[in-house]
């Protein structure tokens, strides 16, 4: 759970930084997408690096979902008779929504790949010029797409907040001060990711990027 989660968070950070190139301009953003496809050439075939990354990501995702499913099944088996009256006392919303939140994020990721990678669900869907796809995606009249992306990114933020904290603890961080540091770091990572990801659709919607 922790190791595959850390890989996924590393991807989220890299992806966010890549997205921010939208603010540099269309040429830079499209060049970046092109660069991703030629990275490693001529050692690797076309899109070779991208396929390595996709393979690692898929493996991490499968491991992550498998671990989550077995934990959920164990939890279910561990309490065959439910409480009639149950009240969470810690009130950790992020911690309590990890399972359904994870499912929602997965569904979002499927939609998102069909939208901005393959272009099937994108109004433009020009694979050679992702900048145009992004601009078309978050145009003001497609506010519902922006809204959906916003909710998905917030879900990712919640998921990452508890995820980072829990991963640090699972990987052996063990002092009280470290526990506080882990909470602060998890919050910082998740707020940073949310801000970075959300800046792109909002910039398009309000016309800063067009």
């Amino acid at each position, binding site marked *: 759970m922790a190791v595959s989660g850390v890989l996924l968070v590393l991807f989220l950070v890299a992806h966010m930084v890549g997205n921010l190139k939208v603010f540099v301009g269309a040429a830079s953003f499209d060049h970046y997408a092109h660069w991703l496809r030629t990275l490693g050439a001529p050692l690797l075939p076309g899109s070779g690096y991208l396929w390595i990354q996709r393979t690692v990501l898929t493996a991490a995702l499968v491991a992550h979902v498998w671990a989550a499913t077995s934990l959920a099944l164990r939890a279910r088996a561990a309490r065959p008779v439910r409480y*009639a009256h149950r009240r969470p006392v*810690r009130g950790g919303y992020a911690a309590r929504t990890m399972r359904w939140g994870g499912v929602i994020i997965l569904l979002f990721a499927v939609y998102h790949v069909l939208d901005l990678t393959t272009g099937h669900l994108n109004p433009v869907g020009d694979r050679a010029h992702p900048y145009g796809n992004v601009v078309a995606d978050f145009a003001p009249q497609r506010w519902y797409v922006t809204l959906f992306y916003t909710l998905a990114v917030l879900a990712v933020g919640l998921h990452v907040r508890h995820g980072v904290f829990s991963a640090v603890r699972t990987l052996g961080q063990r002092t009280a001060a470290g526990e506080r540091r882990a909470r602060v770091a998890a919050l910082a990572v998740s707020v940073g990711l949310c801000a970075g990801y959300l800046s792109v659709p909002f910039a398009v919607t309000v016309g800063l990027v067009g």
Partner: protein
Amino acid sequence: MNLTLRIWRQPGPGAKGRMVPYRVTGVSPDMSFLEVLDMLNERLTLEGADPVAFDHDCREGICGACGVVIDGVAHGPQKATTTCQLHMRHFRDGDTVDVEPWRSRAFPVVKDLVVDRGALDRVIQAGGYVSAPTGSAPDAHALPVPKADADAAFEAATCIGCGACVAACPNGSAMLFTAAKVTHLGRLPQGQPERPSRVLDMVAAHDEAGFGGCTNTGECATVCPKGIPLETIGQLNHDYLRASRRPAGSRP
């Protein structure tokens, strides 16, 4: 005070149970929660009904026998307090209070609110001991222990094995209990020889008993009547990772 208690009644192991409402009148705010159950049981006995079975022993918060889930919270609303030490002044006249046993596959209900917590003993048997001959009580400071280690070990050693952590955990995990035992022995010199095998064996026994896996939600440490801190689970994970990296042959 007058209260309505809705209590889980289950005639025996494996039998079907249900929540049954009881009116209790004349409750004093100075009574403990168990004394209210005593009062109800006296009345039920006089009426010829079956009294509510519940576990208790010391009634001073040190034996760990008495836990029940009160209004959805293990050991009730008061922080760092066992059910026997919970006083009725924390409730209001006219309240309806739900009382349920610990819910865990590893803790089968014996009757009503009594569960069999033997699974925790099996986790202890797997490694919650030192085999160094200790003899009679040694002189204080005969074996120097750094202050930080002594404090951490003592804090962990206050675990009374009540099982509230399991009852509160959304995963039904007993990791806080296991971590308290691992930390208690692992931070002391006497606990070092078996430190790697202890954590591996106790976690294996924990999983074997049917407890769920920990996801660091922290519900356990919030309800723990002894305030065992969540960081003990970090200590357990740390010891576990270190122990599983050692080659199998080097295990004591």
